């Protein structure tokens, strides 16, 4: 706050010396706008070109029949009507939800635990850095790596299971295990990164609060629930909004491993959209599905903000 007020006051004072106050206010406003636009321009151009225009075009395409090689043909709400009759859409929604619950549930709890460990125990930068390593490997590489390690016939994990005396598991091929396995792979990749974000939130909690709690004789458990969690809430919320939105967009891991199978067990919504649009050249239908996903994600994010009071801080 302080830096901005200093910055604005200076030119204002200078201009009072030359011109009348009213006109300068206007000119200053315009001058700021010009400079501001200059700074915002790169982001704005990117936003318009890569987000806004494609979104509007996507919404337009969702009302058309479009096979990419021909021209879009306007069909009204036909695609949306078809979506509500499509059993695979509802299946995909269910599968995606199962994935999100497993992924976010495990990821958040493990990341919180890791963050606490980083904060209280593992203070070496090396160890903190190592936690981030899985995140530095590309998604597809991670998926392929686990795909091979978890292979039923020649994967190392199943070999180890057999040595211990546990029967082999078809991690990606079994209807029950496919989604939990995909969720696990992504928990493994993202937990370090999520932990880092939460860790930053932990560092922002003033140390004197813990000292006071300590003096009052609060137990570790009480301190965690009464001080750490409430003060961590805004950060945790931000992390949740970002990770849940990202989690709904699960695609790459499924695309390189199960490809929606067995039967429809891992056909998550993004993969279904991809199949309809790119494999079956039904871009209108794919766009309509995307619009619906967009609306769902917007509602989810809104509800999270509303109920978890993300814009308020318990410190103030």
């Amino acid at each position, binding site marked *: 706050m302080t830096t901005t007020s200093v910055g604005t006051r200076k030119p204002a004072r200078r201009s009072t010396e030359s011109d009348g106050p009213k006109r300068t206010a206007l000119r200053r406003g315009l001058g700021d706008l010009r400079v501001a636009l200059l700074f915002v321009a790169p982001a704005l151009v990117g936003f318009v070109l890569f987000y806004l225009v494609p979104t509007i075009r996507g919404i337009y395409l969702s009302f058309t029949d479009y096979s990419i090689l021909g021209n*879009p043909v306007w069909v009204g709400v036909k695609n949306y009507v078809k979506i509500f009759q499509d059993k695979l859409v509802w299946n995909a929604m269910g599968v995606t939800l199962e994935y999100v619950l497993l992924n976010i549930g495990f990821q958040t709890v493990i990341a919180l635990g890791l963050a606490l460990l980083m904060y209280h125990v593992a203070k070496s930068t090396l160890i903190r850095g190592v936690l981030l390593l899985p995140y530095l490997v590309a998604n597809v590489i991670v998926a392929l790596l686990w795909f091979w390690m978890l292979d039923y*016939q*020649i994967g190392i994990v199943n070999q180890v299971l057999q040595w211990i005396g546990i029967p082999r598991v078809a991690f990606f*091929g079994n209807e029950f295990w496919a989604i939990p396995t995909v969720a696990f792979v992504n928990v493994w990749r993202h937990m370090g990164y999520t932990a880092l974000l939460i860790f930053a939130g932990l560092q922002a909690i003033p140390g004197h609060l813990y000292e006071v709690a300590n003096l009052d004789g609060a137990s570790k458990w009480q301190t965690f629930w009464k001080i750490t969690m409430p003060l961590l809430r805004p950060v945790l919320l931000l992390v949740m909004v970002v990770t849940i939105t990202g989690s709904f967009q699960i695609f790459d891991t499924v695309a390189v491993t199960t490809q929606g199978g*067995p*039967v*429809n067990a891992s056909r998550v919504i993004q993969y279904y959209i991809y199949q309809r649009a790119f494999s079956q050249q039904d871009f209108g239908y794919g766009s309509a599905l995307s619009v619906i996903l967009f609306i769902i994600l917007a509602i989810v994010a809104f509800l999270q903000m509303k109920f978890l009071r993300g814009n308020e801080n318990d410190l103030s």
Partner: protein
Amino acid sequence: MKKALGAVAVAAAAALALSACTGSGSSNQAASGGEAKGDISYWLWDANQLPAYQQCADDFHKANPNINVKITQTGWDDYWTNITNGFVAGNGPDVFTDHLSKFGDFVKNNQILALDDAVKNDNVDLKQYQKGLADLWVGKDGKRYGLPKDWDTISLFYNKDMVAKAGLTADQLGTLSWTPQDGGTFEKTVAHLTVDKNGKRGDEAGFDKNNVAVYGLGLAGSGSGNGQTEWSWLTGTTGWTHTDKNPWGTKYNYDDKKFQDTIAWFHSIIDKGYMPKLETTVGASVADTFAAGKAAINANGSWMIGQYFGYKGINVGLAPTPTGPDGKRASMFNGLADSINAATKNPAAATKWVEYLASPACQDVVASKAVVFPAISEATDKAAAAFKAKSVDVTSFTQQVKDSTTFLFPITENAAKVDGIMKPAMDGVFSGKAPASSLTDANSQVNALFQ
């Protein structure tokens, strides 16, 4: 704010207007004659064949110094995305390797050039190719959209050491018979080659089907709607065909009892433990699993010869697919061709290159590299000889063509949508989640696509 929105609307409208302009090519004939010069691009997906076609391109350049051919190879999955994007963006290849499952849609959208005039004016001999291959590339409109470059059939790849250990001979493997009711000598052989963890064979008392060390027959997957390497070599022996007519059929026959009985038989040998469960096939390819000694026999295509015989420490043999109820063998007969992008800026040179690719000059070069079977009959024989020089006897593949026991890859419209319906449906039957009769329902969904 209002102004900004207005600007955005203008931008969006402009984008829409621009996009509306693209993709309006018209179906016309490839140019023949005229002066051919300049650079053309050529795309293919099989890395194994790249050296052969690079050699063709070099020879072609020597004969036509004014034309340069630039070859780009990308993997199968990226390949089709790049082709589609290239068509839309207008920067696709001039000439590309085309697949039967794709070219119907390209024809429908006027993306590739017809070659009839070129064939007529330049006297391309369509009889030089293996029977049926050239006609695969005639579209629904009766025009020709590709010149054949190669073909493939199916055979049984088997582990020679395992077969010898089981006391079976190569002759026995070459004369197997099969029926959907009891599986015939084929099932008996597969059972005998299956070994559990305690060393008991599949046809012995006390065989533990839940702890199998080596499966008699490997499984690649459920085969979706065409089952090229998975089941088509057995369904083909029952007299069953995928569609009412081929090419350009409009009705699929997955509701036929002959088909469903065959698929039920496949499920039965999974149940008996002679073939791995479907869920275990997600992951390593069927060939890699074979190389790891987990299966004694694999049914696979001729394009896989290089891979199977390339594994170190595995002694591979080849046998023809078994004979069926009609006493004959069957194999899907699939072929690739080269097509010309309708948006090419250099149709004259592109046509010349396609004709060269389809000529004995280039196909003999491909034959000499022993990677695939070229489409020209004489080049096929040369390829067989080249394989022989690498001590691979490919008779099991060529015999089916000589005996005319092949049937063509089913070509229809809506191929991708059919796959979208049939993949989960076949997965369901192979995994035992649904009975084979459930395919009747899938069949009505498929046939509804054509109404």
